[in-house]
């Protein structure tokens, strides 16, 4: 199982974003260092972005290519890269939908926070399989951030 290392503070920020936009979905970019050869992916910073959908914002989100391009430039300027995206599922479990799967990219982490009645229930992270057939859950590791950072130096 792959691992996503993210600080409790960042997880809290994502949860807060989901609560703020409830009952609509929130979304944002995970910026950090991609794990290779069994190493975990490490989130170093978040970029909260607006849901650019005009309709169905309670169960759909979109981040435009222009926003992705800007996030990519910001990440690269800091010597980092986009390692994934987060979004919320208002009043729905933190499991990816078929719609999520049809629109996902492989090699990225998709962190989903479930917000029920305006409160954060849980957060889980997923990666699309290379054949696009399924999402595999990855472990969210809040404890080993300091260790992972040391290893990266």
């Amino acid at each position, binding site marked *: 199982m792959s691992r996503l290392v993210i600080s409790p503070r960042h997880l809290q920020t994502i949860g807060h974003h989901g609560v703020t936009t409830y009952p609509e*979905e929130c*979304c944002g970019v995970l910026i950090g260092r*991609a794990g290779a050869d069994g190493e975990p992916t490490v989130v170093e910073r978040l970029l909260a972005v607006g849901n650019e959908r005009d309709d*169905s914002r309670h*169960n*759909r*989100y*979109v*981040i*435009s*290519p222009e926003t*992705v*391009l800007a996030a*990519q430039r910001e990440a690269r300027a800091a010597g980092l*890269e*986009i390692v994934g*995206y987060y*979004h919320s*599922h*208002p009043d*729905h479990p933190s499991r*990816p*939908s078929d*719609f*999520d799967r049809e*629109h*996902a*990219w*492989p*090699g*990225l982490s*998709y962190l989903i926070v479930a917000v029920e009645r305006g409160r954060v229930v849980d957060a889980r992270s997923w990666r699309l399989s*290379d*054949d*696009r057939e399924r999402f595999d859950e990855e472990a969210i590791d809040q404890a080993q951030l300091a260790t992972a950072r040391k290893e990266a130096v």
Partner: protein
Amino acid sequence: MSVIIHIPTPLRRFTGEQGEIEVQGQTVGDALRDLTHRHPALERHLYNEQGALRSFVNVFLNDEDVRHLGRDATPLKVGDTLSIIPSIAGGAR
């Protein structure tokens, strides 16, 4: 004519970790076909079952979305750069 296509990080695993690929073509469509010919594993991530570019896959010619130009028929000239830029979408149920 040869142009460079920039590959986004998540798709580099299908291009032998190359971020820039030189391809041949007179139009955007030609260049993309040459890209998937060179790296067939990319095809399912760029095109749907009907052979159309997936709605969340965007191709930029220099700084402009080719959907606002001539799409596949957009002509290329020497020194042009193509970038594959994802838009990110999803949502509950």
